């Protein structure tokens, strides 16, 4: 295994960016053994693929769980088809209520920490950062590898926790005490969940430190901050949020674990624990949400950046208001740290706090509006190519617009009191953080597939995949908001226990149908992915005709990415420049008199 990789990169870090050319003769041969090449690889591109497969596997598990959840709501008391009798023999195939609670707990945990995070941060970050900044690898390749394998350990623990006696964790992904204490959720399931998430958090912190350092230290000569593709702005800000707030979550989880396993009372209130102890379950909510709200942005920021880039790439037009978009994303990252209280409006916060959190939360709509309108500005008078990544990007613009506007209802304390803990919340956050990041993730996969494998994914199947996912997704989450406004609250096994929810049966059945369609559509993607790897048409180095650095090297990307570290002279989005007539894009690493900047 080549430990020299780290030396190489540290060396660069010590000497600054200008010395890259000295290292051309330090190139090390690609590892040849199976273990060093595919398993314990230091190569950021291999680690990216590992994260991608890891995320797709867990995404499939999480999606299957959502199908089961929707089955319960659409077909209360009916055995789950095909595999019901296998999984739940004691109830004749009907999903039992405690397992239903485990399902939505696991669905939330898996989708956030084991599907979206590995794909949109682990895969996209690892794959795009070194290639887009013109580096040969991440700054800390060993840390990068460790981040992935800690994620695997965390995933293994979570998987194991599903099969332990007394069942997996069933207290919701937020894991609120005191329900999460051993008195009310017995058995090893939830403790394993806590350890697993602790490890997942650790892995993310490792990745975050690496991403931040790499983007700061390893940018190619001449690459100014304003020459970074917006994807990297998103990933950079995400990593900062991860590095700042995941430690808070992991600390909270650790305290809860100690409460469970060693009988401390950090989160147990005096009146119900042993005399003389003073804990507070609300303290956990503060710890959780001071991480939990930035987490929404952690998952969505890379997606915003990516979509900003895609809209420019495929409209063949510079990103509209690049600087404003970057500043807006930074402003949102800062604001995200001070708005978490809107998750706790029903815990009896004082009016001073509710007004403050209402106002701060609603302030986020200013920067969000700016970059959102910049997206539309990018499309305006462009020359729009509806490639598959572009379809996903435009789909994301739609879902994020819808999700963003419905966030207003939840930000204000008045309307929040109607909607807190209802399906309105579920529909809203699925549109913003789930559907939007999911669509962007798919866009990223279709986009980088030719660079990963040297072949294109099938366009027709990609279009089918997009429409068969996008339309049901919009329907599902819009109808969830309708159900929520009609009073349907979250996390209930059988809503029809309540008379005022009985008329929602039909609606929930239609949502169930849409979920089944959206789920099946993902199989088209899986088929396309695995078959196109070997059978797709050969892509060539620059199939999308772009100027960013990753498209200046051959496809699939060679082991050391760049033979010679490029020098950057142009921004990432120089399309349709009136002075360049033979093609409609300018490479970041070419110098054109009168257009390029001279920083290189």
């Amino acid at each position: 295994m080549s430990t020299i990789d780290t030396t190489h990169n540290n060396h660069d870090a010590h000497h600054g960016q200008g010395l890259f050319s000295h290292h051309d003769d330090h190139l090390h041969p690609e590892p040849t053994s199976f273990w060093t090449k595919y398993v314990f690889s230091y190569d950021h591109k291999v680690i990216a693929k590992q994260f991608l497969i890891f995320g797709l596997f867990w995404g499939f598990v999480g999606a299957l769980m959502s199908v089961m959840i929707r089955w319960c709501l659409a077909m209360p008391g009916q055995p789950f088809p095909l595999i019901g009798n296998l999984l739940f023999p004691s109830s004749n195939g009907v999903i039992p209520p405690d397992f239903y609670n485990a399902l939505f707990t696991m669905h939330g945990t898996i989708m956030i920490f084991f599907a979206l995070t590995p794909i949109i941060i682990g895969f996209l970050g690892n794959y795009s950062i070194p290639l887009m900044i013109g580096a040969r690898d991440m700054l800390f390749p060993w840390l990068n590898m460790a981040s992935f394998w800690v994620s695997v350990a965390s995933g293994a623990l979570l998987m194991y926790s599903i099969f332990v006696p007394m069942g997996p964790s069933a207290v919701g992904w937020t894991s609120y005490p005191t329900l999460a204490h051993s008195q009310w959720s017995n058995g090893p399931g939830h403790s394993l969940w806590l350890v697993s998430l602790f490890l997942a958090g650790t892995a993310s912190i490792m990745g975050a430190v690496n991403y931040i350092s790499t983007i700061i230290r390893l940018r190619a000569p001449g690459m100014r901050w304003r020459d970074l593709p917006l994807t990297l702005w998103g990933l950079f800000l995400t990593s900062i949020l991860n590095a700042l707030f995941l430690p808070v979550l992991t600390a909270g989880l650790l305290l809860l674990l100690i409460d469970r396993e060693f009988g401390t009372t950090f989160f147990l209130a005096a009146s119900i624990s042993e005399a003389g102890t003073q804990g507070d379950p609300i303290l956990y909510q503060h710890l959780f949400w001071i991480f939990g709200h930035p987490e929404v942005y952690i998952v969505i920021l890379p997606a915003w950046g990516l979509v900003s880039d895609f809209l420019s790439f495929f409209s063949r037009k510079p990103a509209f208001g690049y600087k404003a978009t970057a500043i807006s994303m930074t402003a949102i990252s800062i604001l995200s740290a001070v708005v978490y209280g809107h998750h706790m409006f029903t815990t009896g916060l004082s009016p001073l706090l509710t007004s403050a959190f209402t106002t701060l939360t609603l302030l986020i709509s200013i920067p969000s509006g700016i970059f959102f309108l910049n997206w539309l500005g990018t499309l305006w008078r462009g020359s729009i190519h509806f490639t598959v990544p572009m379809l996903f990007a435009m789909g994301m613009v739609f879902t994020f617009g819808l999700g963003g506007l419905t966030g207003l209802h939840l930000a204000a304390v008045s309307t929040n009191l109607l909607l807190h803990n209802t399906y309105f919340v579920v529909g809203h956050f699925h549109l913003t953080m789930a559907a939007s990041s999911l669509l962007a993730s798919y866009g990223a996969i279709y986009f980088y597939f030719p660079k990963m494998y040297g072949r294109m994914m099938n366009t027709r199947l990609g279009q089918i995949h997009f429409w068969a996912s996008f339309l049901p997704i919009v329907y599902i989450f819009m109808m969830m908001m309708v159900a929520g406004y009609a009073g349907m609250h979250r996390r209930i096994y059988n809503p029809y226990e309540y008379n005022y929810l009985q008329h929602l049966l039909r609606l929930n059945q239609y949502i169930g149908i849409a979920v089944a369609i959206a789920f099946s559509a993902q199989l088209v993607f899986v088929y396309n992915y695995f078959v196109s790897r070997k059978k797709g048409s050969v892509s060539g180095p620059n199939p999308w005709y772009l100027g960013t650095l990753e498209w200046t090297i051959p496809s699939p990307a060679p082991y050391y990415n760049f033979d010679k570290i490029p020098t950057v002279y142009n921004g990432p989005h120089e399309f349709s420049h009136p002075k360049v007539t033979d093609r409609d894009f300018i490479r970041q690493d070419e110098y054109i008199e009168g257009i390029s900047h001279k920083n290189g």
Partner: protein
Amino acid sequence: MWGNNNMIRHSLIKAIFRLVLAVGLGTSVSVMSPSALAQTEETFHKQNNNNDQVHAHGIVETRSALESWAPPKSISSYGHRLDWLFEYTSWVAAIFFLIMTVALVYFSIRYRARPGHKAYYTHGKAKASEKWAPKLLDLAVFVSLDLVLIGSSYIHTRDFIWNYPAGPEVVRVQVMPQQWVWNFRYPGKDDTFGTEDDITTINDMRVPKGKPVMVQIMSRDVIHGFFISNVRAQMDAIPGSITKFWFDANTVGDYEIACAHLCGTAHYKMKGFLKVMEETDFKRWSEEASDWSKAAFDPADPSVKWGWNWALNQK
């Protein structure tokens, strides 16, 4: 679609994926099949018709398709103000969403790539209008939505959310949920909590029509959410600390109290009932119930002893 080499493996993969697709689609079809739907509705109604509690309270609402988009009837004096704000926000947001959708669709058609069409080179500051148009539109959203929400939240907080009623006519109730029932406590005839004539009920909350009701809540075990959709209010029940809110109910009838916060396996069944009575009926009931409570009071029974000092937790 793909090259012809390695046909056998290709068709094998194809077959596997066809199978998986068939399973996926089979699930969708079995959900969609009319007989399955009909069967579900049948068992569903059978289950609910056997539910005595529902019949006893007789809360069966029939709704038209359009009404199913609306929340249950608002019965509190402030519910309509929250509903208005929700509807205002939704409509204005819908208008902006419509503008966005129209722009997306129009740009997609008007500026689609085609021979002879070249994109306009701008970074968004070539003309003054490019610089200011997004900012003005953003400002319009902020003023018409965010400022209204901030202002309304402030006014609502001042007027009713944090403006608790006081005085002799206020009905005071202590609520202590536990897995998975709602315990209610009224001060009884002597108007003092923690005495022998306190009325305690399970899953049965009664209030007089039109009178303000002050509720203090604390949980016995895990966090629960006291949620009455009809009065448009909810408040968490937290073990170890007391939360409070108030409401009033202007229409006589039976309503449901839901637990809005995940509280364990039977969370979905943790349903209480709110009975809004005429004032005289309520008075008669509370006096009778207070007498019975006093007569039946058993100092050895710890389950009746829950409760806390009202005044200490009121302000």
